[in-house]
């Protein structure tokens, strides 16, 4: 055991199981795939999804003899944009380095990364966790390249490992966070907020399942009095937000138990085993790699001068937290609704485009309700991704104006929504489906008469002064028009009939 890893004061005489006040310290390292057309150091397509193994490759990303890297400017700009969105400094001088290690998925035998002089340094991420706004430091943002993939397969004659280098050289950025997080839940909320920013600025899809957003965590435990201090443990193999939270919860518990029992928590790398719900040791401190970093001689220092930074800064959109606060203030939306509406940039954009710049708070709230209730419900039913609504901004605008003008009832609209074709305007769909409001007074009057005849008790109640009874009669009349009559029109006609005959 690494004795130096834990400082135990013998005089403190800690009894196993005694109540200790622990603190958890977590820092996250996120690797995000940058949304560029081509790879980091060559012209191959970064989106190799449909390519057969080893076909989205060239001499550069295959690491063939003589091939040389050329840095992808678009990737550098996206990493810069990320740094700026996190309030990082952009040092005048930064460089690329070779990180040396040997594995079959790394064709050159080194990864071109950044070691001591990253592209962006010293920012912060503000996020909401447990209803509280928190800020965690960002140590750095740097660019690097992805590795290929190994595919292990059973074949006649035994197990084989195959190498697919389509992913080799795909642009990544690493976002290293300061050890400012204090619980697994905070870690999860930090990740969600970070991913949201990356999606807002178009730097990454943030898709965890596809590996476009990966997280390693460093977690350590100490007692608040500083008497017990465990070493930093790196946790890998977490493939979802939930996995991050679960793995860190497991580690937190494991480390506290170890310290409570007077044991050391050694410095090591552990892997999360999803199906067993545990972390297992992968590599101890003594087995740690010596990456032998040195400056990449094939590439000059990255170009990130003031002019380039200014150009990139001009691309910075309104970020999620700011937009959420603006939505809440400008449209009188609740915090929860504002958060939901701004969770995905595309949805917030659709909302704003649909209501237009002159919208009243009432109109905005109505639009928000349609999105949050009906459209998101339909989104879920159709299995659409969280950023894709079933209606475009144009379609939503058409629907809202039809509702406001009384051309369609809310009830008709709810029936209509699942049947609107792509790019079809809701008014046109309603006409097609015969769901526009009834303007034929004869039909409405007939429905009123039918209702009055069918519910004499309600009629009597109303006339006896129980004016609330009209609600039942309105509902029944609406039903008889298939929901297409305008409710205020029905109310007016019912009142006229009831008052006249009374």
């Amino acid at each position, binding site marked *: 055991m690494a004795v130096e890893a834990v400082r135990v004061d013998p005089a403190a005489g800690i009894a196993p199981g005694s109540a200790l006040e622990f603190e958890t310290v977590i820092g996250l390292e996120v690797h995000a795939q940058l949304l560029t057309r081509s790879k980091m150091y060559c012209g191959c397509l970064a989106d190799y999804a449909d390519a057969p193994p080893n076909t989205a490759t060239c*001499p550069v990303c*295959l*690491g*063939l*003899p*003589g*091939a*040389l*890297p*050329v*840095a992808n400017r678009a990737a550098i700009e996206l990493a810069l944009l990320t740094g700026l969105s996190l309030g990082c400094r952009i040092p005048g001088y930064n460089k690329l380095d*070779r990180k*040396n290690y*040997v594995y*079959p998925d790394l*064709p*050159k*035998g*080194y990864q071109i990364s950044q070691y001591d002089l990253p592209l962006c340094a010293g920012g912060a991420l503000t996020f909401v966790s447990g209803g509280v706004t928190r800020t965690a430091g960002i140590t750095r943002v740097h660019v690097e390249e992805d590795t290929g993939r190994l595919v292990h397969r059973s074949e006649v004659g035994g197990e084989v*490992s195959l*190498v697919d*280098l389509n992913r080799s050289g795909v642009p990544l950025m690493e976002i290293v966070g300061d050890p400012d997080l204090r619980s697994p839940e905070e870690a999860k909320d930090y990740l969600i907020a970070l991913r949201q920013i990356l999606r807002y600025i178009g730097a990454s899809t943030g898709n965890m399942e596809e590996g476009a957003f990966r997280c390693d965590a460093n977690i350590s435990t100490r007692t608040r009095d500083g008497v017990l201090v465990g070493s930093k443990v790196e946790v890998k193999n977490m493939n979802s937000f939930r996995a991050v939270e679960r793995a860190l919860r497991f580690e937190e518990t494991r480390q506290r138990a170890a310290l409570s029992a007077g044991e050391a928590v050694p410095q090591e790398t552990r892997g999360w085993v999803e199906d067993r719900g545990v972390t297992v040791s992968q590599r101890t401190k003594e087995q740690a790699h*010596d990456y*032998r*970093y*040195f400056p990449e*001689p*094939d*590439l*000059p220092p990255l170009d990130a001068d003031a002019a380039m930074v200014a150009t990139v800064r001009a691309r910075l959109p309104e970020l999620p937290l700011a937009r959420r606060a603006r939505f809440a203030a400008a449209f009188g939306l609740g915090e929860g609704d504002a958060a939901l509406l701004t969770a995905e940039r595309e949805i917030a954009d659709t909302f704003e485009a649909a209501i237009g710049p002159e919208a009243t708070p009432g109109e905005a709230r109505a639009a928000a309700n349609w999105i949050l209730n009906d459209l998101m419900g339909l989104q879920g039913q159709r299995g659409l991704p969280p950023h894709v609504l079933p209606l475009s901004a144009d379609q939503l605008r058409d629907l809202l104006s039809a509702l406001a003008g009384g051309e369609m009832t809310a009830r008709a609209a709810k029936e209509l929504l699942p049947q609107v074709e792509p790019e079809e305007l809701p008014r046109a769909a309603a006409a097609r489906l015969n769901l526009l409001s009834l303007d034929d007074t004869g039909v409405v009057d007939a429905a009123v008469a039918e209702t009055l005849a069918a519910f004499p008790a309600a009629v009597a109640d109303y006339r006896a002064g129980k004016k609330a009874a009209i609600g039942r009669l309105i509902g029944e009349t609406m039903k008889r028009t298939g929901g297409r009559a305008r409710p205020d029109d029905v109310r007016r006609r019912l009142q006229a009939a009831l008052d006249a005959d009374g």
Partner: protein
Amino acid sequence: MSGQDGARTGAGRATTASDLTALTAAEARRHLDARDVSAAELTEAHLARIDAVEGRVHSYITVMAEVARAQATAGDARIARGEAAPMTGVPVALKDNLCTVDAPTTAASRILAGYRSPYDATVVSRLRDQGAVFLGKANTDEFAMGSSTEWSAFGATRNPWRLSHVPGGSSGGPAAAVAADEAVVALGSDTGGSVRQPAGFCGVVGLKPTYGRVSRYGLIAFASSLDQIGPFARTVEDAAILLGAVAGHDPLDSTSAPEAVPDFAAMVGPGAGEPDLRGVRLGVAREYTIEGMEPGVQAAVDAAIARLAELGAELVEVSLPHTEYALATYYITAPAEASANLARYDGVRFGLSVQAPTLRETYERTRGEGFGPEVKRRIMLGTYALSSGYYDAYYVKAQKVRTLVRRDFDEAFERVDAIVCPTSPTVAFAFGARTDDPYQMYLSDVFTIPANMAGIPGIAVPCGFADGLPVSLQVLGPAFDEGIVLRVADAYERSETWTGQRPPL
């Protein structure tokens, strides 16, 4: 074009095969354009010469006879259309660390035996575009690591002037091919002197351009911050012609410079007028005399410098105080970069692959059997220099010294236009004389390494003989001023009468 044009330019009609293989690129151009010699004839003459002398010299790892014949035919057609470029139809040897699609590229290593590159190096495609004729892939020390070509996995090259002696290295094959009339010109690579030193040993001209002047794309990397491709030729003018054909920015090499490429060929040769160095200040560095310098070399170099003064150059003593540290720091920096550059030879995707039960053993056996002793030595040196705990003491310190070496030259070039010194402290040595003593082998590059560390251009030009073997004068110039080193070397070359002397093969 008619035969009379050729006669008018003074080329005369070359008739015999030996006449043809003795032609320079400039002369060949005049004959080809005059249509009194065809590219096919020129190529056949060189292939015949290769047949005749390869058994003794072994300049080539691969002779590309069929490729050369097809290129010669295409070159003749192009000349007939009046569309000849400077290198159209001119037979060239390529060092075997330059990637070619139509012949194996081995870097003289077992680990790349038979390896076929799917792409051409930029210099190769530029020559191909000009219609040059590729005679073959010339020998080298394995991965260009060595100073004698004895570390080739496919047998050493012999010095055409004395077959018991080494041709120098690492570009011993290209140097010997040009010296033995097995090619008109050749391309090599120079990381610490690998063009200039073998050029000196073989009595031909060798130029290392400014770092960044010539694209490294497709050059199998040894030490990326030092490697530079350069020409071999029998005249300075030819070196200028070949440099002009391959130089210039390449978007595939981020370290290639955007600087415009001057018309080097116009600065040299008979067309540039009588040799005249009036107004040129030449630095003579006091540090470029070391213990172990052969007296015959010193005498020939001193005589050459005196000749430069006769041509009008003003000699100025300069000091390059960090020269003595350049060799030691080179042997940190170059192996450090090499240790990473050679990591890709793992038996997974190409080249030799020795299968073993585990991945680790596959790596160990592939690299153990694939690499020769000098390559292994340098990988170990470099890995050590980059290791945690040693990095600052070795790699970082070497980078600092490198800056000082560069500053020495910057300061010197404020006072002089170029610096003259020996190319090597000795003439060619006998086989086996230094293979058991790596440090003695490394010393062979003591005068050439500083130019690589500083990234500046340097040329080696023959300046006489010592003990019957060629001696070479080196001219160093400021970055991107290949023009001055070519001019000084050209003036010297054309002022001497013995320079046409051929090895007694």
